[in-house]
């Protein structure tokens, strides 16, 4: 049964690349973690499209984890050339902020002057490892949501696929 499942690598690569690139570009990254969740959903959609059989929420979680890993690496690479732009933008923001507010929050200016966003190479690598974990969790979330939204319903029960069913709605959040 397992051999009928489509490969997860290509959907995860596409979803991860899209999410990672969009998360790494300044201004476009204003949607925060939603890009990673969206990337997971895209991967799940691509996986479903290539699958002859219904997929489970667990499949969505796995393809989402792979998506998150690829997105974290992609975001890390993409953000390097944009770092100067991002720092300039943040410093411009503080200038704008001071125009609108008479009293600046205490320590905000010194926060920028101390270079709060600057990190060493070692810290950057540690940050990347932690990012991989965070992005994986967000990607998994997106993958599961994607399976829920785009997934095919199982034709027959007991064929080794879906155990997580759509709720009948009697106990919903």
């Amino acid at each position, binding site marked *: 049964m397992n051999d009928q499942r489509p490969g997860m690598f290509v959907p995860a690569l596409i979803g991860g690349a899209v999410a990672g690139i969009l*998360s*790494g570009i300044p201004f476009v990254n*204003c*949607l*925060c*973690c939603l890009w*990673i969740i969206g990337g997971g959903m895209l991967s799940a959609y691509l996986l479903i499209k290539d699958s002859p059989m219904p997929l*489970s*929420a*667990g*499949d*969505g*979680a*796995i393809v989402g984890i792979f998506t998150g890993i690829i997105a*974290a690496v992609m975001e*890390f690479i993409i953000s390097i050339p944009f770092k100067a732009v*991002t720092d300039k933008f*943040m410093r411009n*923001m*503080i200038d704008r*902020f001071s125009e*609108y507010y008479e009293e600046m*929050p*205490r*320590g*905000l200016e010194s*926060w920028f002057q*101390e*270079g*709060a*966003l*600057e*990190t060493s190479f070692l*810290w*950057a690598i*540690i*940050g990347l490892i*932690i*990012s991989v974990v*965070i*992005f994986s*969790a*967000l990607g*998994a*979330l997106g*993958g*599961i*949501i994607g*399976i*829920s939204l785009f997934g095919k319903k199982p034709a027959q029960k007991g064929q*080794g696929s879906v*155990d*997580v*069913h*759509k*709720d009948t*709605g009697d*106990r*919903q*959040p």
Partner: protein
Amino acid sequence: MAPKNVIVIIYLLTLTGIIIWLGIIFLAPYLASESSPLAGFIYALFSPTCHQIPSRCFFVFGHPLAVCARCLGIYAGFLAGTLIYPFLKGFFSPSLPRIKNFILISIPILLDTAANLFGLWKSSEWLRFLIGLIWGVILPFYFLAGFSDYFIRRHKISLEIHHKK
């Protein structure tokens, strides 16, 4: 390990993870107020998942939180959803929320994000937080059900292989 135990472990790990996650978000401004170099690392850690624009962040200890108000709302909502999950779903019957519920709960965040992006209106930090909170509540119902399903399926497959042998 029995699937029931695995599901409880997944739940506890998720709950612990989100509490630590929220704790670190509040730790960043505290460390910044103490001029700790670790503050910069924590802010940088959150930068891939949040724009961290100061005017859209809450300020604590005189410094912005590590994420914007909307992200904080999503994470706080995730914690709230995780806490109520066992009472609404029970631990051992993982099922995904209905699509209709997900779409309904996603409408406010989609509308507000799009409107702010295109300059139709400017939401306050508290509104952003509230909208994020509403959306965040439903997320653990996917996260926990998805991972529970994965481990239940793995357990069933390993049992099938065992019986065939």
